[in-house]
């Protein structure tokens, strides 16, 4: 990255930050739209992937804010269809990970994405406290966070009967290390899980 692009050691634009932290060069995008054409969720996004790249290319603070407040970055499934077909091999999924984490850090998450974020938090909490995903606990925790108390209630008994749900969590032995891993990685930026 060129020196003039930095200001007091902070990347001047979001695109610079992406390049510095993930190595993904936003400038490479020539707006062919192949990612948006193939994205299974493009129609459900507020800005399709190629448009996100275009907004970032401008370096315009207003547009960058729109990117960080977008629903797109949360509804992206990381299915990697975009990178599989991108002629410029721009790793959009990697960029999306960074944008999500930046959006969390700046507290600019999209209101429509609240459920998705709550789910992720519940998920990571479950791992943090038991080492593995405790599905029953995850669902209960997610419901408590999202207040979607009735969602999937019809499924639970059926799932239990079919042997899909454990009532009690399984705890792994290495839990102290797991806690250390969580605290070390949250110190190093990124979302403090839980």
């Amino acid at each position, binding site marked *: 990255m060129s020196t003039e692009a930095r200001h007091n050691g902070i990347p001047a634009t979001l695109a610079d930050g992406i390049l510095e932290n993930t190595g993904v060069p936003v400038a490479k995008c020539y707006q062919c739209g192949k990612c948006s054409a193939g994205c299974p969720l493009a129609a459900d996004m507020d800005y399709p992937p190629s448009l996100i790249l275009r907004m970032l290319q401008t370096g315009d603070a207003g547009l960058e804010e729109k990117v960080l407040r977008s629903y797109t970055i949360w509804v992206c499934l990381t299915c990697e269809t975009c990178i599989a077909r991108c002629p410029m091999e721009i790793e959009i999924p990697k960029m999306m*990970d960074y944008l999500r984490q930046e959006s969390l850090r700046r507290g600019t998450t999209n209101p429509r994405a609240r459920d998705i974020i709550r789910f992720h938090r519940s998920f990571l909490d479950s791992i943090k406290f038991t080492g593995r*995903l405790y599905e029953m606990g995850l669902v209960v925790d997610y419901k408590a966070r999202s207040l979607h108390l009735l969602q999937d209630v019809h499924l639970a008994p059926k799932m239990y009967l079919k042997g899909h749900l454990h009532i009690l969590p399984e705890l792994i032995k290495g839990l102290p290390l797991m806690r250390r891993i969580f605290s070390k*990685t949250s110190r190093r930026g990124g979302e403090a899980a839980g």
Partner: protein
Amino acid sequence: MKLGFYPGCSLEGSAREYAESVIAVAGEAGVDLEQVPDWNCCGATAAHNMNRNLSLALPARILAKAEAAGMKEIVVPCAACYNRLSVTRHELLENESLRREISATIEYDLRCDAEILNVLQMLDRHVMPAIGDKIRVPFARRVACYYGCLLVRPHKILKFDRLEDPQSMDAIIRKIGGDPLDWAFKTECCGAGLSVSATPLVGKLSGRILDDASIRGAEAVIVACPMCHSNLDMRRPHCDKAMKKHYTMPVLYITQAIGLALGIDPKTLGLHRHMVPVKFEKHPADAASARPAPPDAVKEV
């Protein structure tokens, strides 16, 4: 033969039948799957969405546990776990300073020398060669082999099969007497991690997959990923709703299909655990007209 085995959380819970059928089929081939000791969750979508370092550290601990146990090949049946473990291994091998950083986090000096196998690779390498003569009930069904995203992408890292029209599962189906059809949604996304938090979207994405398979006359969809399974099976009502149709075809794990061909008891394979009942409408002889079915082929399993 002994192989390392990382079941992952789903296979302990909502996808128990996958684990059961993997173990059963591997057992038939004399493959003993030994669990990675005290394994943890790989972090799945949540970790890499929320925290990059965590998304590397969690799989790294799993790799560390396997390495410490001397495992050289780790079978990872869940496509999502396979993807996370493979990507982590790749990133750490590519970037020495990152490898050191993550090693410090997990308090173990990782070498990343164990090979990670997805279920198709395990079947192809260790199971299919050993069960060639054990096919008792050819799985004479017209099926859609569904690979999903995570087995083949990112292709540069996983380097597994063909990117847009993979063939490895189709080849296995052919070997057990089935008829894999040519269809267009082999690697389209099912909605994966949004299953709980954005269910209507999952209904739409998975619905499109079921629709293409059913238009082409698939009797079943064959999968190799618990997330794909739960979205196509458990979320079937949402799919039906999104597509305004009713799809009845069952969704089977590849290992269940092999198990049936080997004559393993459906219960052992966990077929009863599916939300969409595993029933076939046509007699196998009608379904796979190109291939004469043996007379003892069962109508319903």
